[in-house]
């Protein structure tokens, strides 16, 4: 098999998870295919206990592999590229893509599930993304249905997914909880230099590390630069912060980038606006991008322990 076979599955019990995932893993091992497991802790433990011999499995801790979508794509492309170069004709992965059921916001993972159809297309990859319907929110399930070409069943079938590629927009990004408060800074059509100064001043009193502070300044500067050069005025910049976390949202009246890969993969020098978005997807703790009635908004969160 060549190309990326992007498959989902739905289960509502641990037994059903194993019924789907164990044959998938064992099939790969039997055929001598590189087989990777990048699940959250619970499913990793279930699989370790259920597999008779997992010595040939590569375990990637899910929390590391799925820290950020742009990190996951960069890391997976490295891994898949290396395996293909070494002669692998089929690679299998099973992974838990994070969502609010794991305590992680969804938006950028929804964009990830969409983007990987292109980002992994060049590899001989069979990727299984099973979803626990006990903890997966409805809007996530809807995005999963739109982004996976195939669906695996507990009966052992691998079927075309009728919901795939129906062209509906991905779910609307959800505002950050900090946005319930009054923004500390509001600027309309500011220069990037003014934004950097405002962000630096606002986070001076917080416990953000030096690197986090730089990432927030960089992200704010970059989003405003993009809004001013590619968006439609007015470009509205807002900032919220508590003592350990900063949230920045920039809204313009344009449609946002048309490319579903925007921010998730580095683009070539001729499309270097995409490179800036990609950098903040690699450095910030959360980035959402999407349209709602206010316009097109990019929001980032930096610092803190959680981000919802």
């Amino acid at each position, binding site marked *: 098999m060549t190309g990326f076979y992007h498959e989902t599955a739905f289960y509502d019990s641990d037994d059903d998870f194993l019924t789907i995932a164990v044959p998938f893993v064992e099939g790969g091992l039997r055929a001598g295919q590189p087989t990777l497991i990048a699940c959250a802790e619970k499913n990793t433990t279930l699989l370790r206990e259920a597999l008779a011999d997992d010595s040939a499995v590569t375990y990637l801790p899910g929390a590391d592999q799925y820290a950020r979508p742009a990190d996951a794509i960069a890391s997976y492309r490295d891994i898949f590229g290396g395996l293909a170069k070494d002669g692998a004709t089929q690679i299998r992965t099973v992974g838990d893509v994070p969502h609010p059921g794991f305590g992680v916001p969804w938006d950028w993972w929804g964009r990830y599930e969409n983007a990987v159809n292109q980002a992994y297309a060049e590899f001989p990859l069979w990727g299984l993304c099973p979803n626990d319907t006990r903890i997966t929110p409805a809007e996530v399930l809807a995005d999963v249905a739109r982004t996976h070409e195939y669906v695996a069943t507990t009966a052992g079938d691998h079927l075309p997914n009728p919901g795939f590629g129906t062209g509906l927009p991905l779910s609307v990004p959800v505002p950050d909880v900090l946005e319930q408060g009054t923004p500390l800074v509001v600027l309309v059509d500011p220069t990037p230099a003014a934004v950097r100064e405002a962000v630096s001043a606002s986070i001076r009193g917080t416990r953000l590390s*030096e690197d986090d502070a730089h990432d927030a300044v960089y992200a704010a500067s970059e989003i405003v630069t993009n809004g001013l050069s590619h968006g439609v005025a007015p470009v509205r910049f807002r900032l919220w912060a508590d003592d350990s976390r900063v949230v920045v949202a920039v809204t313009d009246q344009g449609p946002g980038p048309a490319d579903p890969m925007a921010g998730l993969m580095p683009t070539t020098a001729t499309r*270097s606006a995409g490179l800036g978005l990609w950098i903040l997807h690699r450095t910030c703790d959360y980035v959402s991008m999407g349209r709602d009635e206010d316009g097109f908004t990019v929001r980032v969160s930096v610092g803190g322990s959680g981000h919802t």
Partner: protein
Amino acid sequence: MRTSGVTDVVVGLNPNDHLCWPFDDFAEFRARAAEFLADGLQLGQRACYVARGDDLATHLEAEPVLAEAVRDGRVDVVSLESRYRTSTTVTPEEQVEAYAEATRAAVRDGFTGLRVAADATALVLSPGSLDAFCRYEHLIDRYMTTEPFSAMCAYHRAELSEPAIARLSSLHPVNNARCAPFRLHATEDGIALHGEVDGVSRELLSLALRNTAPNQGALRVDATGLRFIDHHGLLALHGYARANAATLVLRSQRSSLARLVSLLELDDVECVR
């Protein structure tokens, strides 16, 4: 150690400082030039006043110290045309050599060095002469890193465009107003960047870089005073080094620059603290 920064006073500078001074009226230029030169006399430097117009010596009469120094020969008063041997476009290398010879002569005559205050506006009025003068500004800046020569380069705003003022300002370690978002100046082994480089200043950085040359296969950039640089700016530095077959060596106390280098997988860039 040379001064680097933005200032509104021209006194207290070192014997090899290089100052850009855009001005609005000639009285202001003459007053600041007089202060700058009087300060140089205090340091034992020979002073040189370069300007346009007639009766240049009268420009300095208001300052008694200078009036006396003009009389006893510690201050030369020279027309722009004779000092730069052109009324339009400098030949950068020749002009640096001319100042080097004048500095050596000053030292031979018992001075500690040479200090010049010049209204150079007439030498940057066309695109070609501006390009040549920008090259000269960086070359003379490099000369100043090791020799006892200091200069105040003054430019009459009304005769120049804002972008021209920004280009000239960006090539001086010291300037008098925020005319340029960053300053690029010579160090003993490369260049230093101060201030901020973003999308707005991308083009200005490329123009400034054109005047620089790598040293022994390395473009050494002291970024200690660089508050912000975006990936375009970093890629411009990297591209310029590569185009000149040199390794980009970045000096910064902050980890953010090294993180950006690593994220962009610029494996041939050396980051040092």
